[in-house]
């Protein structure tokens, strides 16, 4: 069985993330680029399944700028077998329609039984790409899973729904996405890091995949970008045994209670 994990390089949310006020694109210089934490949990789920089952291959798939290559090497060190990188200037500022088209095309090219991704990326916050891919490749989707069980022919997991929790089951091929309820990623050991250097990493252009980013299909376009005014610190008091009373006065005074 081949499992493809969608991984994404994002601006580190621990730092100051910025948008360019003219282009609306992420300012690359503003922050470090890291593997999105939620996709590292997806990798962990795939790799730990590969360790517990026979004949499971894990491939990483991403689209992104050149810098994504070092992210892929680091992630390979967690135990994945190979990596596939769609790298093309035509992808700068790609909307979700184009992103899903590209990822579906590369997944079909590689061939896989199961796709695992994070539920929502920390930069785009869309949460629609996995199911868009499922629709494109004609597979079932089971997204935002809080638990995940993989067998040779199916996937099962729980997810939140209106007024409760459902258990969902999909036959392979399927696309699943996981939430941060799944275990945190492992730290790659020295052996993993050394092995990752020699693992296959393939790159693709849009032309390789037969995709025209300028095709006349409906696209989401950015109209404007504004920076919100930063919040400033107000008054700070040290409790001298009466802070609870002072807070009550503050809230009453401001008509907040």
């Amino acid at each position: 069985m081949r499992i493809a994990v969608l991984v994404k390089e994002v601006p580190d949310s621990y730092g100051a993330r910025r948008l360019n006020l003219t282009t609306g694109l992420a300012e690359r210089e503003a922050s470090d680029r890291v593997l999105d934490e939620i996709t590292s949990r997806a990798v962990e789920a795939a790799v730990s399944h590969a360790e517990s089952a026979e004949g499971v291959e894990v491939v990483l798939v991403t689209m992104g700028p050149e810098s994504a290559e070092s992210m892929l090497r680091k992630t390979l060190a967690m135990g994945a077998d190979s990596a596939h990188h769609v790298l093309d200037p035509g992808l700068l500022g790609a909307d979700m329609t184009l992103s899903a088209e590209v990822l579906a095309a590369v997944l079909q090219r590689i061939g896989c039984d199961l796709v695992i991704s994070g539920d929502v990326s920390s930069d785009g916050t869309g949460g629609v790409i996995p199911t868009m891919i499922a629709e494109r490749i004609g597979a079932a989707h089971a997204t935002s899973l809080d638990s995940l069980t993989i067998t040779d022919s199916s996937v099962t997991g729980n997810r939140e729904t209106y007024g409760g929790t459902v258990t969902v089951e999909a036959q392979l091929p399927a696309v699943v996405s996981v939430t941060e309820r799944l275990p945190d990623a492992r730290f790659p050991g020295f052996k993993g890091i050394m092995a990752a250097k020699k693992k296959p990493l393939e790159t693709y252009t849009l032309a390789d995949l037969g995709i025209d980013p300028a095709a006349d299909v409906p696209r989401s376009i950015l109209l404007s970008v504004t920076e919100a005014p930063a919040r400033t610190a107000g008054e700070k008091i040290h409790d001298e045994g009466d802070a609870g009373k002072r807070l009550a006065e503050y809230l009453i005074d401001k008509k907040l209670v």
Partner: protein
Amino acid sequence: MAQQKILTYLPVLPSGELMGSAAELLGAAAQLGSPVGVIVTTPGMAEAAAESAGELGAATVRVAEHEAVGTTLTEPTVDVFTTAWEDLRPEAVLVPNDIDGRDLAARLSVRTHSAIAADVVGVHRDEEGIVAHHSVYGSTFTTESATTHGTLIITLREGAVDYRGQPVTPEIHRVELGELPPQAASITEFSASVEASTRPDLRGAPTVVAGGRGLGSAEGFALAEQLADALGAGLGASRAAVDAGYAPHSLQVGQTGVTVAPDLYIALGISGAVQHLAGMQTAKTVVAINKDPEAPIFDIADLGIVGDVFEVVPQLIETLKAQRP
């Protein structure tokens, strides 16, 4: 020009009531055109929901009831929306930005070749069409987007839109389900959540009290609950508090949880990590109680109290009780 149709997904709870998000979805739809509500349920569940959709401004409601809704994931709803899209060619489709809403938006966008605007916090219309508003990087930037042409599919962030539609008596159209794709995931089990809480929903509450790891234990977290109840507030938590098991994940505020913008946000024993601020920094007034004077939460607090929550909060509750017998 006749008003443009805005297809709106109205999820229904197991009790037969509409989800709380229906009011803001229909509100946003009314800002853009003529709202057409869509309700897809198991048999016998849609009638009352369709009536309440009218009270929230849905002039027309499309209703489909089918057993498959309880056993097949997403596809029954996608099927009803695809047919409605073909019949009405709506200018926009509005769905809640929740798990089921996103899956619907995703499949529908590919099936109808429509662009998506995801995690939208507001909408308006200009000369050229519909404009979606987004709040990016934890509310530090706002952007506006549109589609080049065709229908715009919008996933609307819960709690973001205040506008409300006018009550009408809805015209109800019953529709049939088509054939569903055989590969769809199946729903094998449903367990209702035990919603014992009578507290206001975190997303829309004017006041939110949130507890962090500083509360030390599940028992300690009860302090946040007591203050929330004393103030009639919604209850929230940091990710560290959720990870430690003090509170369920549904209460998590922040980048990977809920985003709130209440009038008053009180943070108890929360350090103020960027990812937490991402979910609450547009609150009108922020009060923070933390025993570390250097905690970053103080950088954005209108009133910061350096102190022990277990001393300050009980005194606060006592004082408020004394004021309001």
